[in-house]
């Protein structure tokens, strides 16, 4: 009897602890959403308004009039992140497949060399990259935000992750393909690639996020305001007069939404992918 009461107590305590942490973590999302729908005069009201009254949906429209370039910046962020993600998946799958399944002289050495690149912080290579990009006149363009992340540190992570994935695919698979007359390209294209979807899901969401929240690169490379991406754009809701919190929060909601939606739909597969690939 006593042990049963104890277990109830213990379960209750577990729920309580989990709830506290969860509330602290969900609260910023809630507060962002609430503020985004508040009347500008009610933002600093005391006691705080938990549910906006009235709901000011027009804040979302006002974002685009207060910052006429917001839509453009949103588009910049979106297309850059999509390109980087697609590129990283392609480059990573090609090299990952080659390192896992094709034998060629120097394969292991080359892989180790590539892996050592993971130790090189982007924060260190950014200075020489900036220098030679400026000399070639490819700064104040989106190029430095797309190609180096795809073929640099992010690419290496992709190769590493997908190689691990291809290694787990039994040898019989590619041997069978070979006997059927498939060359390396067909084996890759017809047999391996369709199986890669779960690994792509993990890689894609992280690559997309990395590009979406990239701050240092746009800060350094972009001068023209037409080229800005969201992280820079969001700073423009603050000026000498202060911050338009209701607009900034509305813009933030819009900037958070795409990734959050993808995450909630792919949630189960994604968390599994993280826990398995994150470890090995």
């Amino acid at each position, binding site marked *: 009897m006593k042990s049963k009461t104890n277990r109830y107590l213990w379960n209750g305590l577990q*729920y309580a602890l989990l709830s506290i942490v969860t509330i602290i973590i969900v609260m910023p999302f809630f507060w962002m959403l609430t503020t985004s729908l508040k009347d500008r005069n009610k933002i600093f009201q005391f*006691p705080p308004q938990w549910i906006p009254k009235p709901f000011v949906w027009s804040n979302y429209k006002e974002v685009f009039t207060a910052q006429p370039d917001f839509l453009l910046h949103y588009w910049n962020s979106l297309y850059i992140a999509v390109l980087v993600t697609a590129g990283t998946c392609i480059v990573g799958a090609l090299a990952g497949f080659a390192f896992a399944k094709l034998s060629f002289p120097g394969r292991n050495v080359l892989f180790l060399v590539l892996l050592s690149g993971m130790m090189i912080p982007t924060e260190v290579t950014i*200075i020489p990259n900036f220098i*030679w990009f400026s000399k070639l006149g490819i700064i104040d363009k989106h190029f430095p935000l797309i190609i180096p992340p795809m073929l640099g540190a992010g690419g290496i992570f992709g190769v590493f992750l997908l190689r691990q994935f291809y290694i787990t695919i039994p040898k019989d698979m590619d041997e069978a393909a070979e006997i059927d007359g498939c060359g390396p390209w067909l084996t890759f294209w017809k047999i391996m690639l369709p199986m890669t979807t779960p690994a792509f899901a993990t890689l894609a969401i992280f690559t997309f996020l990395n590009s979406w*929240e990239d701050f*240092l690169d746009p*800060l350094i490379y972009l001068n023209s305001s037409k080229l800005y991406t969201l992280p820079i754009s969001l700073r423009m809701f603050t000026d000498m007069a202060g911050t338009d919190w209701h607009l900034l929060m509305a813009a*933030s909601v819009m900037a958070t939404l795409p990734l959050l939606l993808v995450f909630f739909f792919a949630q189960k597969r994604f968390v599994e992918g993280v826990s398995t690939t994150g470890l090995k």
Partner: protein
Amino acid sequence: MSASYTKLKRKKAIYGYAFIAPMMIGFLLFMAGPIVAAGWYSLTSYSLLQPSEFVGMDNYAEILSKDDSFWETLRNTLYFSAGLIPLNLLLALSLALLLSSKLRGIGLFRTAIFTPVVTSIIIWAIVWKYIFATDAGLLNQLLHFFGIKGPAWLYDKDLAMPVVIVTSVLKKVGMNMVIFLAALQDVPKMYYEAATIDGASKWKRFTAITLPMISPALFLTLIITLIGSLKVFSQIVVMTDGGPGTSTSVLVYYIYKLAFKNYELGYASAVAFVLFFLVLALTVVQWKLRKRWVHHEE
């Protein structure tokens, strides 16, 4: 070996090289080349204001002996790491332990706690900055409700860094939690059953079975979190911009200012190389100690 076999082998090798070519070229152009170049620049006085000159180890000598800003940013960075790591790992491990029990609705908690991981750090930092705002921030309003006058969190040089640390922990704790969760699930149930039969207490089972069994995951997350914390940048710029004063100015922020505000590219490269050495040393330590610290690994 038949002729067709060698031919097939050669064909495979050609495809192999072709498949890795884009990545290898990218690696040479954007990582290997630049790291060598950064090493070279760090030995010069490269800046926009004066012609570049080879100065040998002068930059390093100045950093280590004269540059108070460097030591301060290094101190701030280590303070950030020292605050972030124990908080992050302890919270992640506790949450993973709580979530590994078979309670109802556990998936919901897991998803909620993981959500910030897939949220842009920029937005996460903006919202927390708003919550920690001095007069109208949610936190101080709540404190006011209990009759407490809240401090000026981000404008207080003793409080700004702890606030940034807490914000950063909450952003990433879900990641480590999920890794721990997977590690906990891999511990064979029979170990616990055997220990329970032998009369081992809950705590004993945790220290004698759980901890050693998940030590590879613990060690991995420790190193990843540590290296990541040395490179903290975005949340600092968004929340404090290095301030108040220089109380939250960290290494990458210092490098950024040197290189792209003052255009002292040579000197900035030297500071960046110090960061590189730190990361390198930690990675080597990881490789060396992996075998000794980690109890169980296949």
